[in-house]
C-alpha cells in the first residue's frame, strides 16, 4: 500500500486525467466543471505533498527508478503552486475547456515524474510527458499564423532534443551498464560524451545561449499563460533535474565542466540582457529576460563547496521569486496582449490604470534586480556563494552583465509614465 501512498499526488493527477475525457464522453455542458475539477485535483495533490513533507517520507520505489523525499516533494509543491495563479488570466482563447486543463494536468504530472525520477528511463518518459502536452497549448496562441509557426518550431527542436538526450543516455548505459542517475564518473570518454550530450540537451530546453534562438520565436507565438508555464514550470523542472544529475556527483565537476557551465551561463546573461534593449514585442522581451535569468541560476550548479541541500534551497527560492516577478508582470497585462504584442502598447499605461501599471513596474524592477524587490536578494545570495568558492571574477562579470539589463527594464517601466518608449 505504501507504493500507492508514496505516489498519491501523482495518482490523484492520473485520476483527474482519466476523469476529464468523461466530460466530453458524457457531453456535460457546464462551464465551471473543468476548472473546478482541475482545482480539486491540484489542491488535493498539494495537500498530499504537504503531508508527505510533514512526515518527511523518504522511499525509493521500483528498484530505484522512482524516489520520493521531502526535498522532492517540496519542489513538486512549488511547481504546482506556482501554476495556480496563472489561471486568473481571463483570456478568451480556449478558456474553460476541459482539454486545456487536461493538458495542464498532464504537464504537471510529467514534471512530477521527472522530479522524482531515479533512473534515466523515468526521466526520459517524464521529459516526453512534459513536452507533448505543450504542442497543442502553443498551437492555440492568439494569432493563428504565428502560433502554428512557433508550434512546428517547438516540435522540431523538441524531437532533436529527445534524440540527443537519448543518445546521451545510450552512451552512459553503453559505458556503465546501469541506468542509475547517481553512478556517473568522468574517467571514461563515453561517460564524458554522454554527460556532455545530456547537459546540452537539457540546456536546449533551458534556452541557454548557444541553444536559445528557438525560445523567443516560440514565446512570441504562444499565449500569455503558456509563456508563463514555459518560462517558469518547465524550466524549473529542468533545472532541478540538472541539479539531481550534476550536483551530487561532487567529483564529477572537475575542470572542463565548470568552465563550460560558467561560460555558457555568463554568455546567456549577456545575450539575454543585450537583446532586451532593441525589443519591440513584449513577449520576446520576457523571452530574453527568462534567458538571462536562466543564466544566473545555472551558475549555482558550479558551486561545489556547499552542501547539496543548500543549493536545492537556493534554486527553490530562485524559482519562487522568479515566478512571483513573472506573475507581477503578466497578470496586470491580462488580455492587453491578446490582439497586438507591441511594447508601445505600454505607453501611458499609467494614465489608463495606475494600480495595474504599478504592479507591472514592481515586477519589472524585481526582474531587473533593484534592491528592495525580491529579485535583488536572491541574486545577492547566488553571487555570495559564487564568491565563497572564489569565483570572484565570474561574479563581477555577472554583475556587469546584469547592469546592462537595467536600462531596458527601466525603459519599459519608465515608458508607462513618460510616454514614448524609444531608445
Amino acid at each position, binding site marked *: 500500500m505504501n507504493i500507492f501512498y508514496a505516489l498519491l499526488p501523482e495518482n490523484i493527477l492520473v485520476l483527474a486525467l482519466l476523469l476529464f475525457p468523461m466530460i466530453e464522453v458524457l457531453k456535460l455542458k457546464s462551464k465551471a466543471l473543468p476548472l473546478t475539477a482541475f482545482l480539486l485535483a491540484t489542491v488535493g495533490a498539494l495537500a498530499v505533498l504537504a503531508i508527505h513533507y510533514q512526515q518527511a517520507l523518504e522511499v525509493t520505489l521500483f528498484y530505484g527508478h522512482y524516489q520520493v523525499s521531502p526535498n522532492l516533494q517540496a519542489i513538486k509543491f512549488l511547481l504546482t503552486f506556482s501554476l495556480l495563479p496563472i489561471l486568473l488570466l481571463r483570456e478568451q482563447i480556449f478558456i474553460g475547456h476541459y482539454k486545456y486543463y487536461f493538458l495542464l494536468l498532464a504537464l504537471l504530472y510529467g514534471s512530477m515524474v521527472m522530479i522524482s525520477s531515479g533512473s534515466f528511463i523515468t526521466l526520459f518518459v517524464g521529459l516526453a510527458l512534459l513536452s507533448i502536452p505543450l504542442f497543442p497549448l502553443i498551437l492555440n496562441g492568439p494569432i493563428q499564423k504565428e502560433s502554428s509557426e512557433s508550434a*512546428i*518550431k517547438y516540435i*522540431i*527542436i523538441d524531437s*532533436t532534443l529527445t534524440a*540527443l538526450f537519448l543518445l546521451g543516455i545510450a552512451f552512459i548505459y553503453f559505458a556503465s551498464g546501469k541506468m542509475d542517475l547517481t553512478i556517473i564518473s568522468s574517467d571514461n*570518454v563515453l561517460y*564524458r560524451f554522454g554527460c*556532455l*550530450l545530456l547537459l*546540452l540537451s537539457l540546456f*536546449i530546453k533551458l534556452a541557454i545561449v*548557444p*541553444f*536559445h*534562438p*528557438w525560445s*523567443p*520565436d516560440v514565446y512570441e507565438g504562444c499565449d500569455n499563460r503558456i509563456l508563463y508555464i514555459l518560462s517558469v514550470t518547465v524550466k524549473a523542472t529542468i533545472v532541478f533535474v540538472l541539479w539531481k544529475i550534476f550536483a551530487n556527483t561532487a567529483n564529477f565537476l572537475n575542470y*572542463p565542466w565548470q568552465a*563550460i557551465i560558467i561560460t555558457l551561463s555568463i554568455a546567456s546573461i549577456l*545575450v539575454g540582457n*543585450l*537583446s*532586451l*534593449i*532593441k525589443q519591440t514585442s513584449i513577449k520576446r522581451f520576457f523571452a530574453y529576460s527568462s534567458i538571462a535569468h536562466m543564466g544566473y541560476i545555472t551558475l549555482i550548479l558550479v558551486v561545489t563547496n556547499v552542501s547539496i541541500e543548500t543549493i536545492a534551497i537556493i534554486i527553490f527560492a530562485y524559482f519562487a521569486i522568479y515566478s512571483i516577478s513573472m506573475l507581477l508582470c503578466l497578470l496586470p497585462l491580462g488580455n492587453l496582449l491578446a490582439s497586438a504584442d507591441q511594447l508601445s502598447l505600454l505607453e501611458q499605461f499609467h494614465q489608463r490604470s495606475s494600480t495595474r501599471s504599478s504592479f507591472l513596474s514592481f515586477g519589472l524592477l524585481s526582474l531587473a534586480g533593484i534592491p528592495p524587490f525580491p529579485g535583488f536578494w536572491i541574486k545577492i545570495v547566488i553571487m555570495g556563494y559564487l564568491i565563497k568558492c572564489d569565483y570572484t571574477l565570474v561574479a563581477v562579470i555577472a554583475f556587469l552583465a546584469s547592469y*546592462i539589463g537595467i536600462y531596458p527594464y527601466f525603459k519599459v517601466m519608465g515608458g508607462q509614465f513618460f510616454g514614448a518608449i524609444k*531608445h
Partner: protein
Amino acid sequence: MSELFLILFFPLVGFLINGLWGSRLQEKSCALIGCAFPLLSLFLLTYKTAVSDFYGVSILFTWVSFENLTIDFALKLDHLSLLMSFIVLGIGSLIHIYSTKYMHGDQSFARYFSYLNLFLFFMLLLVLANNLLVMFIGWEGVGLASYLLIGFWYKENENASSGAKAFIVNRIGDIGFLLGIFILAFHFQTINFDEINRAASTANASATMINLSALFLFIGACGKSAQLPLHVWLPDAMTGPTPVSALIHAATMVTAGIYMIVRLHPLYMQATAVLPLIAVIGTLTALLGALVATVQSDIKRVLAYSTVSQLGYMFAALGVGAFYPAMLHLFTHAFFKATLFLSAGAIIHALHGEQDIYKMGGLAKKMPWNMVAFLLGSLCLAGVPLTSGFISKEAILMHTYSHSHSYSQTLTILLLITAALTAFYISKTFFLVFLPSKNGSEKPLHAIAFAMSLPVIALAILSIVVGLFHIPAFMENYLNLAKSITIKEEAHILIPALSLSLSAFAIAIAYLITVKQIKIVPKILEQKFYFDHLYEKVLLSTLRAFCKRVLATIFEVKIIEAAIWSMRDLVLFSSRRVTLLTNGQIQWYVLLILMALSLLMVWWFYV
C-alpha cells in the same frame, strides 16, 4: 571691554535699519540714521579714551578650537588700532555728513547709507581685530562693501563690471592673505598678533616659514592697497559716488595693507628676504602712479593714481623698515587726500557731473572756499614745507636714504623723482581747474550746500594742523614701533633741500604748461602701461577661451561624452548582432545546436 563691541556694532545697526526699512523712510530720516550711528560710536570712542585707557583684548566667543589651534572672535585696542579707528570714524562721519547733501535726490538714498555703514563696520572690525582671521573677515567685508558701493549705480553695465573687477582683484590678494594665515597657523600654532610677534622674534622660528608667510601676507596687502601688479582696480573704482572714493579709496580701505604690515612689524623685521621686495615694489608703484597721473584728464582718476603712488611711498618706507614714518604718512595722507576728493566732489557736483579737468576753468572766483581747501590739500600732497605732507614725506625719504642697503640710494632718487612728478600733476590740475581759462563752461553753477563745504574745510584744517604742533613727535613715542635705522646726519639737510628744489621746479613747469595749453600725451602713459590691457584682453579672455574651447568642448564633449556614447554604440551594436542570431530559420537553430556541440567537444577533448 563690552563698549568696544558696542563701538563696533553701532554702524552694523545703522546698516540693518537703513537696509531693511530704508525704502520706507523718506530721505531726511535715512540721512539722520546714517550719520547718527558713526558719530555715536565716535563719541563713545573719544569718551572712553578720555576717561579710562581701556586698552587690551576682549573676547566675544571662540570661533573654532582644534587641538593644536584655537581661533576666537576677539577685538584688541592699543595705541595703533586706536589711532586707526580715529581716522576711520573721524573721516567716516565727516564723509557721511558730506554725502547727505551729495546724494540728495538719488532714489536709492537709503541703500547708499546702509552700504556706507556696512563699510564702516567691516573697517572697524579690520582695525580692531586681535587675530588674523577677524582681520581677514573685515578684509573681505570691506572688499564686499567696496564692490557694492562702486557698483552703486548699477544701471550702467560698466559700473557693475568695474565693481566686479575690484572684488576679483581683491580676492586674488585675499588668496595670498589666506595662504599667509595658514602658514602662520601651521608654524606658530596661533594667529593672534602679539603671540605671532613674540614667537617670530624667538630663535626657533624657521626663517623660510617667516619669509613665506610675510611674502604671502604682502601679496594680500598688495591686493587691498593696490600695489603694482594688482593696482588696476583702483582707477576703475572711481565710477562710484565721490564720497565713496574719498572714504574708501583714499583714507581707509586702501591703507588696510599698510596697517596689517605695521601690526605684524616684528614678524617683518625677521623676514629679511621680503623687505627689499616690498621696498622695490613700493617705489615702482609710486613711480608708475605718478607718471600715469600726469596724463589723466579726469580729475578723480588723477587723484586715484596719486593715491596709488602715495601708497607706493608708504610701502617703500615699510620696505626699508621705517614703520613709524609709513604710519605717519598714512595718517597725513588720509586727511589731505580726503580733502582733495571731497572738494573734487563738490566741483563735479557744481558742474553737473563734469569730470574732465580740461573742460573746467575759472572756478576760483565762483567757489572760493573750495579753492582754498583744494589748494591746501594739493600743497600737502606736493610736499610744500610746513605742511603735514612735507613732514611725513621727508621722514620717509630720510629713512630710505639712511637705510644701510646697496639699493636704498637708487630708491631715494626714484622717490624724489616721484615727489617732483606728484607736485607737477597736482599743481597742473589745480591751475587747470581754478585759473580762469577760455574753455570753462558758463552754465550757472549748482549751489553747494553748507553741509558739503563744512567737512571739506574741516578736513583741510586738520590736514594742516596735523603737521604743525609737533604731533609727529608725540605720535612717535605713542606708537613706539620698532626702529632699526639711525638717520644719517647729512640726510637732515640734503633730503629737504633736494625735494624742495625739485617740487618748486615741477610747479613752475606745471604753471607754464597750463598757460600755454600744451597737451603732450605719450602713448605708453596713455595706455596706463597696458596693465588694463593685460588683464582684460590677455588674462581674462584667454581663460574664458581656454575654458570654453578646451574644457567645455574638447574635453567635456569630445573625450568624456564621446567615450560614453561610444560605449552606448558598442552595446547597441552588440545587441543588434545578438538579435541577428535568431533569424527565424528552424534549420539554422538545429545547426547552431550541432555547432555548439562540436565546439564543446573540441574544447572538451583537445584543450
